[in-house]
């Protein structure tokens, strides 16, 4: 089943532990600048927005890659980067509308979120569940239930079901 990392920015506290553990998982060092996930913090609005690769069905990065180093695996739902093919032209970085492709300036290679081989560290450490690793088929059910609960509350059948 295809999976995705579901983001609920209203639950993000901006602690950025996801960035740290991502960098440790992938590089062995604490360095948020080498993390695949990035929290954008609007400190005077009190908002923290997690940003990461959305693993598009029709990824711009895959389309522009001249050496076919990027490909989407429909089994896992993950866009994978084959570093042995990558020539570091950074076209993917230019093309991605979400800034999800990054360049690791220490290892001098492209990096992107690849779900930590099916067990994303960021999700594991996200205490508030602002990040969840879910089946794509069920991903929107949570929001549907939330809407349902609001209706339930509106007609006075339940309190605090959210």
């Amino acid at each position, binding site marked *: 089943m295809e999976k995705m990392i579901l983001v609920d920015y*209203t639950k993000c*506290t*901006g*602690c*950025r*532990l996801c960035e*740290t*553990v991502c960098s*440790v*998982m992938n*590089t*062995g*060092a*604490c*360095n*948020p*600048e*080498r993390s695949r996930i990035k929290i954008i913090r609007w*400190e*005077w*609005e*009190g908002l*923290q927005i997690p940003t990461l690769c959305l693993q598009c069905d029709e990824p711009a990065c895959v389309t522009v890659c001249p050496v076919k180093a990027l490909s989407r695996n429909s089994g896992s739902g993950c866009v994978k980067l084959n570093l042995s093919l990558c020539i570091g032209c950074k076209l993917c970085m230019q093309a991605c509308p979400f800034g999800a492709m990054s360049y690791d*300036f*220490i290892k001098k290679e492209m990096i992107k979120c690849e779900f930590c081989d099916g067990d994303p*560290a960021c999700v*594991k*450490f996200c*205490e*508030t569940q602002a990040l969840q690793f879910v089946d794509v088929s069920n991903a929107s059910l949570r929001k549907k239930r939330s809407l349902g609960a609001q209706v339930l509350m509106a007609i006075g059948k339940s309190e605090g079901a959210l």
Partner: protein
Amino acid sequence: MTLKSKIAIIDLTKNEIRTEPISEKMRRLYLGGRGIGAHLIYNHVEPRTDPLGPGNVLVISAGILTGTMAPAASRVHFGGKSPVTNGFGSSNMGGYFGPELKFAGFEHLVIKGASPKPVYLWVHDGEIEIRDASHLWGKDTFETPQIIRDELEDEEIKVACIGLAGENQVRLANFRTGPKDSAGRTGTGCIAGSKKLKAIAVRGHQDLKLAHPKEALQYAKKVVDQIMSTKVAKAMSVDGTSFIWNVTNTSGLLEFYNGQVNKLENWRGLTIEAFEKYKTGMAGCFNCTVHCRHQFRINDGAWAGTFGEGPEYNTQTALGSFGADNWETLLVGWHLANKYGIDTTGWSNDVRGVMELYQRGIIDKEVTGGLDLSWDNANQLIPILLEQTAKKEGLGAILAEGSLGIIRELSKYSKDVEYYILHVKGLGKLGNVDRVQPSFALGIATSTRGADHLRSRPALDHYHLPEDVLKKLYGGYVSSDFRSYEGKARMVRWHELTYAVVDCIGTCKFQTVFFSPNLPAYKEWVNYLKYITGLEFTEEELFNIGERVYTLERMFNYREAGYTRKDDRIPERCIREPLKYGLPAIKGGHIDRKKFNKMLDEYYELHGWDKEGLPLPETLKRLELDEEPPYKLER
């Protein structure tokens, strides 16, 4: 490597910068953070220098694990010779500044001399520039970071800066970063002001490489789970440190009107429930899963649109202790104190004292510049007095001098002034009761930075833990009755040394044994240090580091200010005036002078200090502190 972070020595007079590595020996003796910071302060401050002169230094110290995935490893210390106490100045803050300093390649900055014109430091990836800050002088602590980010064209730059209070050398001025975080106590912002240092901007892309990444990651998850399984973490996640206020208030453990009473008539406007209408969310410091930072917004009235993070329980008890009866007053006070860069705890203490002088007719409107300092006016007075303090105008010129300055200035009106300005070593007391718990009293009396809870407070003393648990924790008998003096010297000493270790490591104290015996302590620290840095310590070695750091701070206090036993005191009011209200166990409580002195003797003995509280030669030798320059100088 995490251990490759450097020390930078920045001389603002000579416009020189050099860097030094942190030696293995320095790590073994002082670990990092507050520990290495204390060593640097002790060695770089010119003995007996004027704290506002160029001979003082400002030392900024991130912990050995700051910036790593050790839970809540966000802390960074600001220190020097305190303009408030004339002794050891030291205060730390969370947020993101400390980790960014590490990513920029530095663990400690030693800022010496003084600049003739306003400057700021630009610290990035192993390099440091001293830059002009003329255009920043006069800007508040909220505007300054954004101006710097704009001019350096990087939104991820973290800035610690001073506000108007620091520029004007208000003694209680602090260093701040972002909406929330302040290294609040002991006046390090005032030191920066005297050096014409407006801000420190940091940005880094460097690795903190882990010795054992896989194990470190697994262990971090285990400790996070351990932390989040405690009740206190769950409560803090929802209500921040303010979760304690309702309990302490209803028990009679909060002081109001300068400690005259421990009961507030109009308390309903200050509860955590009353805060709900302002709360917009909770945020976390770097790598913190507890996220105890409130976010708030004032939606209507004169302050509509004001957004901020916090405040803490400590500020709630401080600003809420002299007549304010609603959250809006507290939030506005907190907002303004942050904007100007003033320590809310110390400032509130001093204002309370001056208001009592007014209540007793010791000072009148001539002294207050026409202000009516009646307790009933607190809601209106807080914003006025904060602005006056930051600008050193009117009564603010007196408040700006801190507890010792106020006593000096106002004692001409009555010899009793000293009785009413509650302080220890010049640093103002907190708004909570510490005269019914001998351990709390001993803690503030002996704290190396003056009256403060984060140096040694054994919050566990209120938990009534079984005595065998206490014995196991402290290595000797400690009474489980918070009113008892038995074993409390041992308890306080254990906590002060333990908190010194936490401060060397750089994690948040609230995720340690401070709040619960089930939160991380030595066992966990030994493991983090091993997995993250590769350094192997025993629990005992870490405890000894804490002792070394605490003793060195003590030596500094004697060298600089001559502090001895006579200064390890508590405000006289805590001895002479029994509590009037509260639960049966609390009502009537006060400190017994004789028993306190006996406890102090025990405390010195456990430390290996003499009757005057000065380290004995054999203690210095045991702690390898005889290698530091002597602390007993010719007077």
